[in-house]
């Protein structure tokens, strides 16, 4: 979606948006995980909540600029992008290690039979913990 379309979407009425009282807090498990990691890292003092709000606001603006209509359903995607930015900024882990590890999880998932827990050890190239 072009930024102009995103702007148009932003001016649409909010009525069609979901607003059930019973709406689940998280739609997918990874959303819950990224939320919990953020709360845990904040609790241990890696960043202040103001820093986080600013970082998250930046991720939302970047996504909008890239064409995300930002209907609320991509909210935890913004959290994920912001958290990746934050951990890099704080020197915890950079993009390169994240990308390597993501590839390892992908191989591990494909090597795991259906219905069984996906473990990093299932990666055929797994070399043991560091």
């Amino acid at each position, binding site marked *: 979606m072009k930024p102009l379309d*995103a702007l148009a*979407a*932003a001016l649409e*009425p*909010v*009525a069609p*948006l979901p*607003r059930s*009282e019973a*709406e*689940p*807090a*998280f739609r*997918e*498990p*990874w959303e*819950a*995980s990224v*939320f*919990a*990691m953020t*709360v*845990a*890292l904040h*609790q241990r003092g890696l960043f202040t*909540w*103001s820093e986080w*709000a*600013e970082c*998250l*606001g930046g991720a939302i603006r970047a996504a909008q600029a890239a064409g995300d209509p*930002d*209907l*609320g359903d991509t909210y935890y*995607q913004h959290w*994920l992008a912001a*958290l990746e930015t934050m*951990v890099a900024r704080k020197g*915890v*882990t950079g993009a390169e*290690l*994240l*990308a390597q*590890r*993501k590839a*390892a*999880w*992908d191989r591990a*998932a*494909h*090597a*795991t*039979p*259906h*219905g*069984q*827990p*996906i*473990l*990093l050890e299932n990666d055929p190239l797994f070399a043991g913990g560091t």
Partner: protein
Amino acid sequence: MHASEDGPHPHGHDHGHDHEHSALSGNALRVRALESILVEKGYVAPDALDAIIETYETRIGPRNGARVVARAWADPAFREWLRRDATAAIASLGYGGRQGEHMVAVENTPEEHNLVVCTLCSCYPWPVLGLPPAWYKSAAYRSRAVIDPRGVLADFGVTLPEARRIRVWDSTAEIRYLVLPMRPAGTEGWSEEALAELVTRDSMIGTGLARDPAGAPA
């Protein structure tokens, strides 16, 4: 954790050749990558993450806020305390801010209606309302609540008298707002528990009003 829930890719068009095996979405992979590194480096513990998720999925929700509002309706001294120092009044009921935020209660009156938004990043009064609904996080709500609050209320089916002012409160990382809706008429003598049933999540954000007692099981 959660391996069985996000593992299988039931209609994996990209992985039709691979249907005996699992696949994870791009987001799930990124999250697992980050989580496994944070655990290895000792930044987070898996148990602690599970505990946080459990808390927010089951223990913290709008019912906390409803109990705060019901107490304020039933107890004038508590209401006064809530207006003066919402953080302390809310904490006295056992609901505390985990992000160190300051709570402010804004009271609806026949003259003034309050509406809460966070234009920057969807900050939300978690301790009393749980996690925000999807619409609260949408760009449409964040922008329209500020430029056209009456139109937003109309979308939610709320029409206020023309003369009633609408004040919009933009939350920040430090300050979160809780709307104290007006107590519905016809609820004199009700218990706090019964009153709490009339308090909806939306009424505490300002996009709704408290339920009409005629429509609620008293």
